C-alpha cells in the first residue's frame, strides 16, 4: 500500500495560515525578485505549505519523510489583499507508487477571512525516503 493511503478522500478543513500583512508580502516579493504588490505565487506557495502541514500529521504515515514537489497547478479566482486572513483547506486525492517512488496528490483551497475561495491548486508530491 502506498504511503498516505489512509488519508485518501479525507478533507482537512480550512486552517488559518497567516495574515497577508504588507511586511510579510513585501519580504516574499523581495525573495522572488518581484516588483508586484502581491506576487502571483504568494497564495500558491501557501497552498504548498498547507499540504505539507497535513502530510506532516502523525496519522499520515509521512511525518518526518522527505517531500519533493513534482507538479503544481493553480488557478487564481480572486486577489489577495493586504491584511487578508488566509486559510487553507486540503483534500488528499490519491496516492500511488511509481517505480518504487511514492506519490501523493492533494487539492488545496485558499480562502479569505470571509470564506471566499481565492485560489485552488492541485499538487503532486513525491516521498523519496525516510528522514532521520
Amino acid at each position: 500500500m502506498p504511503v498516505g493511503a489512509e488519508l485518501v478522500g479525507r478533507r482537512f478543513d480550512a486552517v488559518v495560515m497567516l495574515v497577508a500583512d504588507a511586511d510579510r508580502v513585501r519580504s516574499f516579493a523581495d525573495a522572488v525578485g518581484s516588483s508586484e504588490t502581491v506576487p502571483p505565487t504568494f497564495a500558491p506557495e501557501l497552498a504548498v505549505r498547507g499540504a505539507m502541514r497535513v502530510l506532516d500529521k502523525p496519522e499520515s504515515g509521512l511525518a518526518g519523510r522527505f517531500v519533493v514537489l513534482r507538479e503544481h497547478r493553480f488557478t487564481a479566482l480572486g486577489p489577495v489583499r493586504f491584511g487578508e486572513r488566509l486559510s487553507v483547506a486540503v483534500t488528499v486525492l490519491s496516492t500511488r507508487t511509481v517505480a518504487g517512488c511514492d506519490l501523493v496528490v492533494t487539492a488545496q483551497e485558499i480562502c479569505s477571512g470571509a470564506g471566499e475561495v481565492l485560489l485552488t491548486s492541485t499538487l503532486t508530491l513525491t516521498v523519496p525516503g525516510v528522514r532521520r
Partner: protein
Amino acid sequence: MKRGDRLPPLRVVFDRTDLTRYAEASGDHNPIHRDPELAREAGLPGVVVHGMLLVAHALRVFDRPERVRVASAQFLRPVVVPRDGSVEVLVDAAVAAVEEDGTAFVDLRVSVAERLVARMTAELGIERDM
C-alpha cells in the same frame, strides 16, 4: 501577443543565499534546500532550488505576471545549487494560443545548461481588475 510569438528569454541566477531568503520569506524550511547531506538522503544530487521559487522567477518572463490566472509546473529535474557558486536557469516562453477576448496560453520551458528542468503552462487573463 499572438500565436507562435516567442517572448524574450529570461536568465535567472540562484545561489544559496537566494534559497535561504526564500525559505525565510515563504516558511518552506525543507532541508533539501539547505543541507547537502539531507538532500542526498532524499535522493537528490545536492541542495536544490525550491520549486515555487523557480515558478515565481519563470513568471517574470511576462511583462505583467499579475495577469497569470492559471499556471501549472512539472518539475522534471532538480536544480542543484553549488555551495560557493550559483546556477543559471534559462526561461523560454512561446505563445500557444490567444482567444478572441485576449486570454493567452503560453508554454514555458525552463532549462539549465540546455537540459530541461521544468515545463510550465500559463494562462494570462485579459487586462482588467480582478
